[in-house]
């Protein structure tokens, strides 16, 4: 008989396809048997199948749960296993390390990842490849130990030295820098820096003279006083000031679209509402977590610039109980949700902007077993895509009921998928609103925002922005000062950025030449 091929069976796994092909073959051959006067082999097949089916079904269920939907490239538990083995590594201080520790782009590995792979093969010489997740997790610690002393990237530092220092053992441009010991804090230097960083200009010659005449304690008081004055300046919080500049990558404004809604019969949209809320959350003693959790808005008066909290503004129509700070503004709905049934862009942008994780660089990957389900049939369950979409899709589900351009525009709609997208994919209406962020399940976007805002990652990302801005370079991986700042922001300062800045100006990183 001729070969039978299944040209289109998108929902069948390989096992299912093989079984179906076998069944058809048996039926066709049985017909031939009957024609020749033999007992149809289908009878034998039915009996055999009846006996074997439960066993086969159990085997497939176990395989799926153990290996995941994509057994050929299972989502590795590497980052967590790495941190279990090296809990004190700076890579594990804030969440889990990025996949870039071992990979250039998954599944391709860098030199360190290649050495890990070789070590795993030596540890389990008889295991078939690829390893199962259980085998991988069990063998990884011993494999890592065997390459501790090796210098995988050839930068002159052993892998264990780089892991301990928080640099990247697979990147020859990343290596530990020898600590030079504590450096003297220069108050005069800090006086100049605060003026320039926050007020936007140098102190005058006379101001320096006055400062020099103060005793040391008086100079420290003057530094904090100066900071307080400058934090109220137009340069810091005014339109297009420092805080607005920090907001640009989060808001991503487009001048030509700023009032686009009003030109097309849509409710007017003004992304300055987003800037106002961001700046408000960063000034005075306000709670920085409101960038994700605020159910209010902020207006701005000019000359001088002052921000005020209000419950409603005419350019925002999201239902109050569905608001989540800068996740649900009209601009976000217009620009990041638009027409998408599953707003992956909105979720990824929020992940990057507020938690510092760029999924495109494989940062912040927390794969969820069984994902992606690819409800909207975009092919994201292909092996190459699933590496990231097993995190991104569950991250995006809580956004699914927030309308962009579908009616009711820019508002929450509980049956949004059923109303607007039911015909787009076979399984799309099964898409849940519950999702996951940082490995934690969440029921909706409000809960998503709460988990994100109260995470270590949010606190660290918030402080890192100001550290980069004021110190001038990222914190070193094992910087105790940096870690103290973000922990204190969360545990003592109730997420007040200004209080954190008063701590920051006293760090050696800021004040030592």
């Amino acid at each position, binding site marked *: 008989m001729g070969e039978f091929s299944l040209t289109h069976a998108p929902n069948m796994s390989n096992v299912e396809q093989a079984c179906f092909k076998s069944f058809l073959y048996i039926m066709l051959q049985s017909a031939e048997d009957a024609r020749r006067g033999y007992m149809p082999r289908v009878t034998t097949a039915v009996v055999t199948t009846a006996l074997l089916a439960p066993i086969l079904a159990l085997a497939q269920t176990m395989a799926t749960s153990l290996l995941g939907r994509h057994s050929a490239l299972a989502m590795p538990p590497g980052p967590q296993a790495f941190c279990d083995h090296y809990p004190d590594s700076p890579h594990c201080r804030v969440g889990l390390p990025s996949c870039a520790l071992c990979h250039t782009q998954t599944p391709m590995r860098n030199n360190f990842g290649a050495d890990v792979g070789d070590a795993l093969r030596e540890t389990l010489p008889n295991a078939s490849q690829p390893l199962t997740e259980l085998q991988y997790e069990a063998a990884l610690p011993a494999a890592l130990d065997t390459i501790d002393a090796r210098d995988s990237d050839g930068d002159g530092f052993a892998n264990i030295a780089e892991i301990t220092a928080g640099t990247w053992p697979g990147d020859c441009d990343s290596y530990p820098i020898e600590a030079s010991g504590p450096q003297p804090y220069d108050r005069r230097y800090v006086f100049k820096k605060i003026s320039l960083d926050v007020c*936007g200009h140098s102190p005058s010659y006379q101001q320096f003279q006055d400062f020099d005449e103060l005793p040391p304690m008086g100079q420290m008081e003057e530094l904090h006083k100066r900071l307080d004055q400058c934090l109220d300046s137009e340069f810091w919080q005014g339109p297009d000031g420092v805080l607005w500049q920090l907001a640009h990558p989060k808001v991503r404004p487009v001048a030509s679209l700023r009032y686009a809604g009003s030109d097309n019969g849509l409710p007017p949209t003004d992304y300055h509402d987003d800037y106002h809320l961001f700046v408000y959350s960063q000034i005075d003693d306000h709670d920085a977590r409101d960038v994700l959790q605020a159910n209010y808005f902020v207006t701005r008066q000019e000359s001088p610039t002052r921000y005020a909290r209000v419950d409603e503004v005419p350019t925002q129509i999201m239902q109050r109980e569905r608001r989540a700070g800068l996740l649900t503004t009209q601009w976000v709905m217009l620009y990041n949700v638009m027409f998408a049934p599953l707003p992956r862009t909105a979720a990824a942008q929020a992940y990057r902007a507020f938690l510092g994780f760029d999924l495109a660089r494989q940062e912040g990957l927390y794969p969820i077993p069984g994902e992606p389900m690819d409800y909207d049939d975009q092919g994201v369950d292909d092996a190459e895509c699933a590496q990231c979409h097993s995190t991104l899709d569950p991250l995006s589900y809580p956004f699914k009921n927030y309308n962009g351009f579908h009616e009711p525009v820019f508002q929450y709609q509980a049956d949004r998928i059923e109303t607007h997208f039911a015909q787009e994919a076979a399984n799309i209406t099964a898409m849940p609103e519950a999702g996951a962020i940082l490995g934690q399940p969440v029921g909706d976007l409000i809960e998503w925002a709460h988990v994100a805002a109260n995470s270590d990652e949010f606190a660290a990302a918030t402080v890192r922005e100001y550290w980069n801005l004021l110190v001038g370079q990222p914190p070193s991986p094992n910087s105790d000062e940096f870690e103290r700042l973000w922990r204190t922001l969360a545990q003592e300062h109730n997420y007040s950025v200004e209080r954190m800045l008063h701590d920051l100006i006293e760090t050696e990183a800021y004040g030592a030449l």
Partner: protein
Amino acid sequence: MRYKYDLISILASLLVLSAIAVACSDKGDSDLAQMPPPQQPVAVSPQPKIKFKGHRRWRNDLARALALDEREVCNEMGQYSCTELVHRIALGGSAAEDLGFYTPLPTSTITSPIAADRVALSACIKRVDLDLQSQEPVIFTGPAPMEDGHREEIIHALYRRLIQREAAPHEVTYFVELLYRDVTSLAPEVSLAASARDWAVLSCFVVATSMESLFY
């Protein structure tokens, strides 16, 4: 960051070249060799992390130091702000709404030092010309041509205003004697008044584009 070090090296090169060009005369070389060295050894910072002031901070400093309105500091073709518009990105700024530059460029550009020079030169020319026309000059005091006694005063004023410190004696010597002598002797057919004006502009320019003025 690489941004800072690229700009430092380019500006340092420009400064050296300009110093050499100005001092290069039949008598200049031997005089330069006789200039006293810095009085204290320069300490090497173990973690150098100075920052370029950027388009707005530097403009603010120039405006305050040279007693100019911020909008007067530099305008291309007389109307387009050098620091807020034309050279904003080259001078370390972002341009989010119009161009989608949400963050400043991570490194300086080939035009960054050129832009910095233009801004400084524009501001210095403006101040010098205002003072020459004014009955109450702010920095460049004394009737034109700038008399001997006033040149030292002018240099001290420039240092205090632009980089908030006193000029060292050898720095004063350089500006007052060498630079002035060479500027005024380079083109004998130019009037002394014009040469003196050039000296004033160049002195202001040299201090305004020094590393102490551009970085912190």
